[in-house]
């Protein structure tokens, strides 16, 4: 039973190996179609690349405007490092004192 199934399978494989379907009609001008597709992809890629480069000045202007805005509207910071640290520390001490967490 198994032997006959093996033989049958063998015959089917041999028949399939013996004759390959013909694709010569599709092979005609295959290179032309393929190279056209490759060229199309290249054009598409390069147009994205060009567009990205053209957008660079716009992005630079947006970055500049946002930098100016943040500098203009944010509260002024002290240039004194000790003052900034102690300002923060004073807030912490006051909060602790009011909350009754302070030892003194």
């Amino acid at each position, binding site marked *: 039973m198994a032997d006959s*199934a093996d033989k049958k399978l063998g015959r089917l*494989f041999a028949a*399939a190996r013996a004759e*390959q379907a013909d694709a010569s009609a599709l092979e005609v001008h295959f*290179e032309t179609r393929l*190279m056209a597709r490759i060229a199309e*992809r290249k054009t598409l890629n390069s147009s994205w690349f060009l567009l990205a480069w053209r957008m660079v000045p716009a992005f630079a202007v947006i970055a500049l405007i946002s930098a100016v805005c943040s500098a203009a509207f944010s509260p002024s910071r002290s240039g004194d490092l000790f003052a900034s640290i102690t300002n923060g520390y004073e807030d912490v001490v006051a909060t602790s004192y009011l909350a009754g967490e302070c030892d003194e």
Partner: protein
Amino acid sequence: MPEQSDDSLIRATLAGDDGAFAQIVTRYKRRVFSLALRFTQDRDELDDICQEVFIKAYDNLKKFRREAPFEHWITKIATRVCYDALRSQRHGNNQVTGERTLEVQDHAADARNNAREARELLAWALAQLKPDERLVITLMELEEKSVKETVDLTGWSESNVKVRAHRARQALKRILEVDHGR
């Protein structure tokens, strides 16, 4: 004019000469078409698969190491693209397979001795297999690749290839027995 070697055509392509790549395509399209034909009979899908193979080759030409012949490299890419196509067929084409089943089964009883019918019967039976089993059995039985070559083309381990080939044969026998019983 002497025929240029694969190596010089590859170098020219990498230098930007697309005409050189067209020559490579002319040289290897028969090989790619004949392999892809083992997996699909649909003309549009066949053309898509073959284009995909050469586009992948074009995109990855820099990675070609020249350790093996170019034909081997392109066959490896073709195997991978065919396997991907089999997997997407499996997800999207069940209806078509079912229709084909009925058609072949109707004629199978009186036309078993006919070679064309035998090929159709095998194509139908192969379409019932899982993509990995179909790939292995096609490479080993129809393309007559050895286990080692199949390992090389698929990237699977030797034991994996052997197990899949065994399972595929068993599944094919079961499918054909069921078909014979009807």
